[in-house]
């Protein structure tokens, strides 16, 4: 297949999967087989794309030109392929986990769940392959809309309220600042095509560019830059696999990916680096610290993880704002590493919930004894997210430090160090509580909440394997990170690796 | 002479109008309506003669007929109104 066909396949395959899922909804086994087959197919497709990628021969695929310069177009390029690879790779694992989780929870509306999941992947692929900002925007909106049924899945009052907040944040930010910024760009530059080196240089003054960058940073609500992060904790009402999708596979990743693409192909790395991004640096750094601190105060496991995501993603924004090839490289790596690390953590939190029906830090004392393998992978995930070797999460932190010191931003270096400490501070206690504390040491008020007739269910195998695999992935990525960096290096103008 | 008659007719018209506006009973008003109708017919006829356009008589003719219809309609309304109540 030609690269064009592969790109279309990558988008259409999940779409077809969704259709098939809808059609085969009557029998759960076939439906889930379809999901897995689709995931496998997509993984192969994306692998083919990555393996066959050649920057010299990559040609855009124009679908339609809505208005002059406002076209729908697909184009494969390294950053997008990395994102596609992450999303496609994690879909399969997440699907496996979903099967275990949803069956264990006896969840209703599973057909809709799997179908929307596949649709979300289709949208994520479209985002990854987008050749113009317009295309990206369209896919971005589609992603917002198709994830809504997932977030509202339980359809309880709380779920509806949370999902409404989710939708309100994402649509509001995308329709006003994001679309506004896109239109501004379009009118200023006359095009929205992703062009290496950017399209805005010389079209607007640096002051206006700063404003525009801020518009983008806040417009891409999925990147959850504080103070527009509220949707992310709100969306925790969703089933855990969905949270995994939001945090690791597609949604927030789509957000930061969008920022990376904008930085590289709309503004140009140099343009941002010459001072346009300075305001954003401050905001992003503050966001990192603030979100980490908030995370430490949360008792609910998923809320804690959610704020962790806010903090970790702000690092990608930070990378964008620093605006050097090295920093962008760090951002791309952070995208990958955080995905694998955070999905491990969510898998873990979900598995704890399945096995013990407990959701809060104050309730899980001692449960780790029964779930050794799970807690081990949870620890791996935690350390990787915090950025300790020998796990993949180390690389982006390290490169970011390099980039910051290269621009003599020593305060920022300090910030990053502090953030690692804070990360350890809010993730490790989960592990410690679960493994080393005795059950009786819990908060006495929380105790009777734990069991209400259900008893502790056995942990299904399908809910255990994925976290173990992703934890292993974190280790593998530690080794593979330089390869990824080399893959994207030409696109971001990164020279020899440090 | 036409002018004098026209003015006289108009004054008749105006006086009847006063009665129509002042009332007090509905029947007074119907009466005035009737008078005004007749006077308008005459006025139009006289105007036609004054300006040498004798075709105006046609209008006067139609007027005379329609005036009757209008009056009968009002009467029917009043009679019907009373007999029901």
């Amino acid at each position: 297949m030609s690269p064009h066909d592969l790109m279309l396949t990558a988008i259409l395959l999940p779409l077809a999967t969704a259709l098939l899922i809808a059609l085969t909804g009557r029998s759960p086994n076939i439906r889930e087989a379809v999901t897995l087959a689709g995931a496998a197919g997509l993984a192969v497709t994306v692998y083919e794309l990555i393996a066959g990628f050649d920057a010299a021969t990559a040609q855009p695929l124009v679908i339609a030109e809505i208005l002059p310069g406002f076209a729908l177009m697909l184009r494969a390029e390294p950053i997008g392929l990395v994102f596609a690879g992450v999303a496609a790779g994690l879909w399969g694992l997440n699907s496996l986990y979903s099967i275990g989780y949803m069956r264990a929870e006896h969840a209703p509306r599973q057909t809709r769940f799997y179908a929307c999941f596949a649709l979300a992947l289709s949208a994520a692929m479209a985002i990854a392959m987008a050749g113009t900002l317009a295309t990206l925007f369209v896919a971005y909106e589609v992603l917002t809309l198709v994830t809504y049924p997932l977030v509202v899945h339980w359809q309880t009052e709380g779920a509806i309220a949370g999902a409404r907040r989710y939708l309100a944040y994402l649509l509001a930010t995308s329709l006003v600042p994001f679309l506004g910024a896109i239109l501004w760009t379009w009118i200023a530059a006359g095009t929205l095509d992703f062009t290496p080196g950017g399209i805005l240089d010389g079209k607007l003054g640096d002051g206006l560019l700063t404003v525009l960058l801020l518009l983008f940073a806040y417009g891409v609500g999925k990147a959850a830059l504080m103070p527009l992060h509220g949707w992310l904790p709100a969306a925790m009402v969703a089933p855990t696999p969905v949270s995994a999708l939001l945090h690791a596979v597609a949604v927030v990743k789509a957000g930061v990916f969008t920022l990376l693409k904008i930085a590289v192909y709309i503004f140009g790395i140099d343009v941002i680096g010459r001072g346009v991004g300075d305001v954003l640096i401050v905001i992003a750094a503050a966001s990192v610290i603030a979100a980490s601190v908030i995370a430490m105060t949360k008792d609910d496991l998923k809320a804690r993880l959610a704020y962790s995501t806010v903090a970790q993603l702000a690092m990608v924004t930070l990378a964008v704002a620093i605006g050097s090839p090295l920093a962008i490289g760090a951002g791309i790596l952070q995208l990958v590493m955080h995905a694998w690390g955070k999905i491990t953590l969510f898998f873990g939190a979900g598995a704890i919930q399945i096995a013990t029906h407990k959701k809060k830090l104050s309730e899980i004392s001692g449960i780790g004894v029964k779930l050794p393998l799970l807690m081990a992978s949870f620890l791996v995930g935690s350390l990787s997210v915090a950025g300790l070797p020998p796990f993949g999460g180390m690389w982006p932190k390290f490169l970011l430090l390099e980039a910051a010191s290269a621009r003599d931003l020593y305060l920022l270096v300090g910030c990053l160090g502090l953030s690692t400490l804070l990360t350890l501070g809010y993730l490790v206690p989960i592990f410690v509580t679960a493994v080393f504390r005795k059950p009786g040491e819990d908060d006495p008020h929380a105790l009777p909440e734990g069991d209400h007739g259900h008893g502790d269910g056995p942990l299904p195998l399908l809910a255990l394997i994925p976290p173990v695999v992703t934890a292993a992935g974190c280790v593998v990525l530690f080794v593979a990170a330089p390869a990824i960096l080399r893959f994207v290096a030409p696109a971001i103008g990164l020279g020899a690796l440090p | 002479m036409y002018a004098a008659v026209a003015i006289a007719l108009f004054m008749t018209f105006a006086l009847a109008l006063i009665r129509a506006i002042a009332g007090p009973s509905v029947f007074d008003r119907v009466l005035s309506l009737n008078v005004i109708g007749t006077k308008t017919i005459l006025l139009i006829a006289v105007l036609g003669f004054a300006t040498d356009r004798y075709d105006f008589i046609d209008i006067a003719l139609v007027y005379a007929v329609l005036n009757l219809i209008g009056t009968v309609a009002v009467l029917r309304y009043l009679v019907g109104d009373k007999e029901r109540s």
Partner: protein
Amino acid sequence: METLLMIGLLAALGALAVTIAFMDDLLVVTMLSGIFSFTCCAIFVLFDAPDVAFTEACVGAGVSTVLTLAAIRLTGRREKRVGRRASAVGLIVSTICGLALVYGTLELPRFGDPLAPANQHVAPHYLNESAAEIGIPNVITSVLGSYRGYDTMGETVVVFTAALGVLMLLGGSQARPLRRGDAPARADRDVILRSIATLFVPMTLFLAPYVQFHGAYSPGGGFQAGAIFGGAMILYGLVFGIDRLNKLVPERVLKVIAALGVLTYGGTGLVTLALGHQFLDYDALSPRPSGQQIGLTAIEFGVFMTVTCVMILLFQRFASRRSEP
């Protein structure tokens, strides 16, 4: 004399309008608005527009009054006393509009100015050429039927639409037929009125064709003739009872004829099309000016059919409706 009459009549109109605004007996209001129409007719005559006066007489004094009375019979005669309160919004809006209009008149040509643009551009053509082009003395009829014949077709359709609307609103499944013994259904017992009506109805019916066919030479035409014919039937219905009118001219027949009238008018246009001319170009029928006259006769007849039937239909629909207890 004319100026004096004009001022007097306009003042009378003003007095009437203000009285109407503050009267709360709808019957009186209807009568006064009938008088208003009469007065307007006199003004139209004074302003050299006999055709308009003619039509206003038929419509304002005749049809409108009868219809309004029939409606009041069904809706109740008294208005709530709120009618006497002045409305600030109404005053403000109408004052603003009035002032705007007065502002607009300041530069207008004086009343009666023969050199006004309105009397210079298109109008002279009608006055000077119509004798040759159409061949009938009543220029208004020429313009109405030929130069602007298409507008008149629209007008006929409007009349038809009104009938259609009233039939939909008060007819068909919405009909509330009168019960036996309802007052308006009975014939009037007044002998004098009945004998007058017996005399008048046929006379009026003969008047209609005169107005119809004399329209080319004097004020009148299809619309006025239709209104008069319809008026005669209304008089019949008023005096002898709506039941007898319904029997005399059944609704079904009226509907068909009303539709036929519109079709006659439009059909004339289609015939001219078929003969290779423009729509409503009567020259297609025969060379000028006789073609024009044939065309005018045809369309006037169409108008007559529609208007007659619609007038009767409207009255029938209102009058045969049972009033609320």
